């Protein structure tokens, strides 16, 4: 399997030097947002990254794209280590990966028209002539289901779903091979959400994209993702092919996420369960070293184990 994007033992510590007294006394408030996380995105696949709000998903995404300083660990793009590249050296990798955010409004410069927004990547990378640029912009708009009547509008003159399509068109302008989508559908209603997901699926087939799709809901990923990585409090707690996650969840946190999916059949409906940290802490799976093997080890007895083919979980080993 060809890995296009890989995070290896990546950590992020946010240190706050909020005010001048902190600054003078070198007194820092450290917060570990991402703790020794590894996962990889395979070529032309969709990796779903799921976890509750604050679990560090966006932080991982930003680090993967080198948009945020990495405290520890390494990032690989097409097997090249980009962790320590400077901005100039990064520029050629920038074309390879693009990002789409949740908030479609603040993701677009409110002072620019749609066509200017889509064309800007070409200006940055000095690609194509002016005429070509405009044609490509219209092509891209059509690709995401909009048309050329949108070119001279401003972002506020579009609906949320339309704006998200523009964000996607802009992301695709440079023909990236990797797309990071950070909760691109969370702000959209169910119907538009489905449209945008279908669009991403189509584009993935058509352009051979590899997508890192971030969400806090598992059901969004069911049809879209090939593999799912579950994050909890800055750590990866489970990782498996999508069917495995739904059929045989092992970590208590993954189970609670599955329970949180709204059920269609009323007889299956339970009272909505909220994520209970005590419950999770006290139900960390335990395995015997004879049955499984450590993939990596944190403390003497806690680590990442492979319980099944390509199914990994954070567990205690006795």
């Amino acid at each position, binding site marked *: 399997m060809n890995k296009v994007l890989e995070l290896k033992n990546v950590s992020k510590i946010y240190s706050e030097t909020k005010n*001048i007294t902190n600054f003078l006394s070198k007194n820092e408030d450290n917060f570990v947002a991402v703790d020794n996380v590894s996962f990889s995105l395979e070529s032309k696949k969709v990796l779903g990254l799921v976890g509750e709000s604050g679990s560090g998903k966006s932080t991982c995404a930003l680090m993967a794209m080198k948009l945020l300083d990495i405290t520890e660990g390494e990032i690989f793009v097409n097997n090249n280590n980009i962790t320590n590249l400077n901005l100039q050296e990064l520029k050629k990798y920038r074309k390879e990966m693009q990002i789409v955010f949740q908030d479609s409004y603040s993701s677009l410069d409110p002072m620019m028209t749609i066509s200017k927004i889509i064309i800007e990547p070409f200006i940055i990378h000095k690609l194509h002539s002016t005429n070509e640029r405009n044609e490509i912009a219209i092509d891209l708009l059509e690709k995401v289901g909009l048309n050329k009547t949108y070119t001279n509008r401003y972002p506020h003159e579009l609906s949320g779903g339309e704006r998200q399509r523009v964000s996607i068109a802009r992301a695709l302008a440079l023909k990236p091979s990797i797309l990071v989508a950070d909760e691109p559908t969370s702000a959209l209603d169910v119907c538009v959400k489905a449209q945008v997901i279908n669009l991403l699926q189509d584009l993935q087939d058509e352009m051979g994209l590899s997508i890192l799709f971030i969400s806090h809901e598992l059901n969004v990923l069911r049809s879209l993702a090939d593999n799912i990585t579950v994050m909890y409090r800055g750590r990866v707690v489970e990782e498996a092919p999508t069917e495995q996650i739904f059929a045989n969840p092992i970590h208590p946190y993954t189970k609670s996420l599955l329970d949180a999916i709204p059920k269609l059949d009323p007889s299956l409906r339970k009272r909505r369960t909220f994520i209970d940290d005590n419950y999770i802490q006290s139900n960390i799976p335990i395995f015997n070293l004879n049955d499984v093997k450590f993939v990596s080890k944190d403390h003497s007895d806690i680590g990442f184990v492979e319980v099944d083919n390509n199914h990994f979980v954070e567990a205690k080993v006795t």
Partner: protein
Amino acid sequence: MIRYIINRLLSIVFTFFFISILVFILMHAIPGGPFDPVDMPLSDSAKAKILKQYGLDQPLYVQYFKYMWGVLQFDFGIPYQSPGETVLELIGRAWVPSLILGGSGVLIGAPIGIALGLIAAIKRNSIIDYITSAISTLGLTVPVFVISMLLILLFSVWLEWLPASGWGEPKKWILPITAYAAIPMATYARYTRSAILDTLNKPFVTVLRAKGLSERKILFRHVIKNSAIPLVTVFLPMFIGTATGSIFVEAMFRVPGLGAYFVSSIENKDYPLEMSLLLMITVMFCFAYFIADLIYALLNPRIRLGDKKKQ
């Protein structure tokens, strides 16, 4: 657009009359009158004669309408404290030093403040940021008369470079203008820093970085333009505000400007002057906000005034 402008102008007229009534009532609600000298009380008959001469014996509402009728014909009355000239002549005379002082204070302070705020935002949480924020905090919290005194101490008393007070020659302008520039510098630095930081934290800036646009181009092509929108609405009215409210600096440096008349007109119950000065400020503020809103609308594609189709 035209309709919007007409609406705004009408609301300015309304504000003007509303404020005029308010000021008139408050002015007369303060006990005492203009012709009650403490040291040399007038006889009752003499006082009645003077009151009658100035129309102060009539009911308040009559006085109000008479005065406002005059105002509509640009007759703002005669100041009691200087009966040899009209209110308009007095304001016209005292206005010049105030305008030079306030205007150049803002024109010097604002660009410096904006530049400082910009640098602080780009280099946030660096030592430069902290120094800038310390300076602007000082500028905002230390009263302007303390700044004035320090300047006088340093440059007039110790170094003996500049005169401590007066206004006649440009050399005497330097210290008051410097003292005066401190406030706009401090406020503009603050607002600019927070507006720029706000924009820098927007996802679209992150997207631009992801596209490979350099920080410098992100700043000049996108961030400044987007930050200008909120800043315009704050800065323009503030510009007028600072350009008029120079009372303390004028007092410290004995500048013969309008500032002194604000105080004396209230102290001496100089009704025509008090009323005129306050109405003048009202009008200036109204127009400052009006112009700020127009510029805001021109800059901001989200607001196409009166363009109902798109709202």
